[in-house]
């Protein structure tokens, strides 16, 4: 009996890792969320992390939600927005319940344009909104919303036109190259952002995007080093979702935080969340901010670590380790440490600094609990109160409790207790 379940788990986990490795994310469209994300309803706001209601949301996520209500025109002022929210007129659901992910507060509403990624190997789709440094951190000022409006009215449509011109863009080659150019695709997606801009410039011209919009869009891409994070997150989501719902698998299919709770999902445990209080982030602050301002860990971006990027690929991106005052050796040891809690390493995503070893892929809940080695996650820092832009960046590890709970649930489901 005991032997059989171990065998089943190994088999299931190999399959989960195989699916993650075999995933082939292709950017097929950029479109308004309401048109493409399944299950979207009126007056619905999707958010990052496990489920949370307005009362329990952290300050930054509240600020971001206020921003979205203003952006959608559902409210004319901050006060009106808060009234609507307190009246319970808005439905909240996690992005992860809609095949979607979002950075930081992760807020997605119907008019927010999202990346549409199709995993060509398995046919599943995933969605992510664009990355910016203000509204998603809880800043709902006019200025903050300007970027969302330009994204909706100029940049996203221009990119969509270019994308249609080339019939979709395969992201795996960009990701593999970027990992070898010093990116870890989370806090540092600079190379990937450039590669993406290079790939899209000519198609947008060929598609006949009007000159002014074209210049604005190329300028936007050229100046936005974090642009590709939205694409890497959507790719990671499309990759991880292919490994969902494999019976007996103890592989993590999502790690996500809402600034109040950290939650994980596990392949062999349907779509159940295993949560614990969100931990504080260890990091560096932008001028004018300090530890006393920091909110707790937030965002769906840990989907990148779920598939072996971000903190798992730190060995190839030692440049950003200075965020926590680390050395290149530490960066390498983070990446190697992660191999101890995963099913395998990627045959395709290799890191030159690690002697071309692959990135660790397929977090195994059992190994995390066994070793007490927790996944290392790169992240940005938001303020604890609404109304602020990005305040810093750093590293964080999930609470062990999420993994303990998942393991107990696993034992219960598979008849071991």
């Amino acid at each position, binding site marked *: 009996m*005991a032997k059989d*379940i*171990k065998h089943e*788990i190994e088999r299931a986990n190999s399959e989960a890792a195989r699916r993650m490795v075999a995933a082939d994310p292709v950017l097929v469209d950029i479109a308004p969320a309401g048109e493409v994300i399944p299950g979207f309803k009126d007056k619905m706001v999707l958010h990052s992390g496990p489920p949370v209601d307005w009362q329990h949301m952290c300050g930054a996520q509240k600020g971001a939600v206020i921003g979205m209500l203003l952006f959608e025109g559902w409210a004319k002022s901050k006060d009106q927005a808060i009234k609507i929210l307190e009246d319970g007129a808005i439905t909240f659901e996690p992005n992860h319940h809609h095949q979607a992910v979002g950075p930081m507060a992760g807020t997605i509403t119907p008019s927010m344009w999202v990346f549409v990624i199709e995993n060509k190997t398995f046919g599943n789709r995933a969605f992510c909104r664009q990355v910016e440094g203000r509204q998603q951190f809880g800043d709902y000022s006019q200025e903050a919303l300007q970027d969302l409006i330009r994204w909706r009215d100029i940049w996203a449509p221009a990119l969509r036109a270019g994308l249609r011109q080339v019939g979709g863009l395969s992201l795996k080659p960009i990701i593999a190259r970027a990992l070898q150019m010093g990116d870890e695709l989370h806090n540092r997606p600079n190379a990937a952002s450039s590669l993406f801009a290079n790939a899209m410039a000519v198609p947008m011209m060929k598609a006949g995007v009007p000159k002014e919009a074209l210049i604005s869009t190329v300028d936007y891409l050229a100046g936005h080093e974090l642009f590709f994070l939205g694409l890497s997150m959507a790719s990671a989501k499309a990759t991880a979702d292919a490994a969902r719902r494999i019976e007996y698998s*103890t592989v993590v299919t999502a790690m996500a935080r809402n600034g109040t709770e950290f939650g994980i999902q596990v392949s062999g445990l349907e779509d159940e969340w295993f949560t614990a209080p969100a931990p504080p982030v260890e990091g560096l602050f932008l001028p004018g901010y300090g530890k006393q301002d920091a909110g707790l860990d937030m965002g769906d971006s840990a989907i990148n670590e779920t598939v072996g990027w971000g903190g798992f690929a730190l060995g190839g991106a030692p440049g950003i380790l200075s965020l926590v005052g680390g050395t290149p050796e530490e960066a390498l040891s983070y990446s190697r440490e992660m191999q101890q809690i995963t099913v395998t390493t990627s045959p395709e995503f290799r890191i030159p600094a690690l002697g071309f070893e692959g990135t660790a892929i397929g977090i195994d809940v*059992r*190994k995390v*609990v*066994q*070793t*007490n080695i927790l996944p290392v996650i790169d992240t940005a820092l938001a303020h604890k109160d609404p109304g602020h832009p990005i305040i810093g960046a750093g590293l964080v590890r999930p609470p062990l409790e999420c993994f*303990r709970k998942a*393991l*107990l649930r*696993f*034992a219960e489901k598979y008849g*071991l*207790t």
Partner: protein
Amino acid sequence: MKTELEELLQNGPVVINLGVREFAESLQGQGVEVVHVDWAPPAGGDTEMAELLDKLL
């Protein structure tokens, strides 16, 4: 067909050492391939988890 034990006797040991480091060092000194595991109690000494892990891992 040879058993695993017969293979061990024929080919000599390739070792994983779990625990006392000196055992690994004396094997390394004999030119044996050894990987030493820096062992710690599983699940950080959480016995409920360790018992569960025995069934699962």
